[in-house]
């Protein structure tokens, strides 16, 4: 986790430095705000990764000499085939189109979104396609 943490921290701290220079030199607050927010997008994930780095032993993927046998437990549970991302996508599409063609497409779109989101969650809870 050390490298992952430092990648984010490096970007965050660098942008923070740019923010300070820009703020005092340009005296323009819009750009300084955007830069400050960007620095946060680097530093916040860095804090999360750093928090875990302190509490975890190095994972097999962080150890240069690790063998395949050191990987403990399943890598993860991966869903197989499911129609719900497609339904959700079409729902989002129809909902977005309502901004152009009027609210009626949103009625169909939002129903599809609710249906797909609930069904996908239930699918996970059943433990079928996780």
């Amino acid at each position, binding site marked *: 986790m050390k490298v992952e943490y430092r990648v984010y921290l490096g*970007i965050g701290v660098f*942008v923070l430095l740019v923010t300070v220079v*820009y703020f005092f030199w340009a005296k323009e607050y819009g750009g300084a705000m955007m830069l400050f927010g960007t620095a946060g997008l680097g530093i916040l994930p860095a804090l999360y990764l750093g928090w875990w780095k302190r509490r975890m032993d190095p994972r097999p993927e962080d150890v240069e000499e690790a063998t395949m046998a050191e990987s403990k437990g*399943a890598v993860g549970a991966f869903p197989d085939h499911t129609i719900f*991302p497609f339904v959700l996508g079409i729902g989002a599409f129809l909902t977005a189109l309502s901004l152009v063609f009027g609210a009626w497409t949103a009625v169909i779109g939002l129903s599809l979104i609710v249906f797909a989101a609930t069904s996908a969650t239930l699918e996970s809870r059943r433990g079928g396609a996780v």
Partner: protein
Amino acid sequence: MTIAEERSELAHEPDAGGHHGPSGIYKWLTSTDHKVIGKNYMYTSLVFLMIAGAMAMIIRAQLVQPDGHIVSQQMYNELFTIHGSIMLYLFAGPFAFGGFANFILPLQIGAPDMAFPRLNALSYWLYLTGGTTMLMGFFVTGGAAAFGWVSYAPLSSYTNSPGPGPDLWIVAIALTGFSGIFTAVNLVTTAFYLRAPGMTMFRMPIFTWNMVVTGILILIAFPILTAAMVMLYADRHLGTHFFTVAGGGSPVMWQNLFWFFGHPEVYILALPYFGIASEVFPVFAKKPIFGYKGLVFATLAIAGLSTGVWAHHMYTTGTVLLPFFAALSLLIAVPTGIKVFTWIGTLWGGNLQFKTPMLFALGFLVTFTMGGFSGVMLASPPFDFAVHDTYFVVAHFHQVLAGTAVFAGFAGFYYWYPKLTGRMMRESLGKLQFWIAFIAFNMTFIPQYLAGLRGMPRRIPVYLVSDHVTFLNQVSSVGAFLTGFSFLIWLLNLWISWRKPIAAGDNPWDGHTLEWATSSPPPHHNFTSLPPIRSQRPVWDQNHPEYADYNTEHDGTPKKGVEAK
């Protein structure tokens, strides 16, 4: 060595290995396999490339004569707007981070799939529907959006751009923006949490590194674009005044928001292709990549710097701090230069094989370096004031972006096509395509630099004989048509490989990285076994133990105590 029990369990799941899933169109609609989604992304974005390319042909046909009448002036505006929007939002980005990264990244780090497969599928559907939404603009009253891909205020206000076409464009950008954000979350999480044992961060292939950095940049840049689109929509329909002077807003704020997304965006488009070149060069030079850590840190430096250069697109607004943005823009040339030198260092003294992927990668290196130099020129405010909004800028960004996406993109396509399909493309047709594309591409854009220096503004449908740019435009147009022709050769190559397949085998190029350790195309969940990962080139180490990286110094000589054969 085989993979651990827990890893190999994956291969014994009921639906793995033999894999009795649905087939046909239902498989396409329901798959959450990163390989299927990656291929969907790749082929969809190539279709968008063909559509945008056809638009470019019409634009160039219009400019052959000083007073062209191929299309109406309104149609011309719509064409260059949608051409730019497709190329930037629907082709260059999704082809790389949706297509290549989706397919290749999990394979390169030894992962069975992406971290969030269903989110991955959703992001493809949002991309497809977003792209469709953009094209729907041509079929509504008033036509498609016609304000350029940058959508500057106040031209994009409802008064100046009425009708549903611009709204469809806004919705399309929002949908594809969300698609990009979801893909970025997936890429970063996968690279951080699903690597195989021994695959440390500093053993990840450069392509994977570049995709991680691209993902981080997407997460920084795309939300700003989506927020800006919401504000633009609110200005057009809900009576807000973010970008209108009359209501106390500021049109320049649009430019600030847009380019705060837009400049990281050009690196989001370029970094994946740098990654592809960094994979192709070492394989066809039979050497490890030169200066691995230098490349990684150069990529991170580009990412950091790219967030502080947005206003170099706005020098002529007179509202930006010129020395600050000029300095940071010029600084970007340093890490970019490091990359170019590490690529040359990789080729230097290598056993070079000029296969099609290598030719395309070299073509990328040439066009990108040329475009990069004109970029350094444009970073200087006095020069930019002279050529802002001329064809010089058009030539610059086509050489860096189109040159990168097309040449490095095809390098990657030819390189990984055997892994995608288990088939080879024909080398002779590939080389023919490369040489026509390379000559024609430069024939298209080098005259545009000269036209720009003579003062020809961008986005104009007609010009005067007295402007002395007619000949330059004619050369450019012929180049464009030839470039278009080179794509037909590619289609022919694809068709031949489909009709008369030549089996590729698992590792046709003697590749270095883990994607070449599995079958072509890879099985469900990718690997039945993994080689031990002891260097940045695990597959090379396995296939050439006498020259394995952990046994040799960087120049290939054996380490002390190791006997080379």
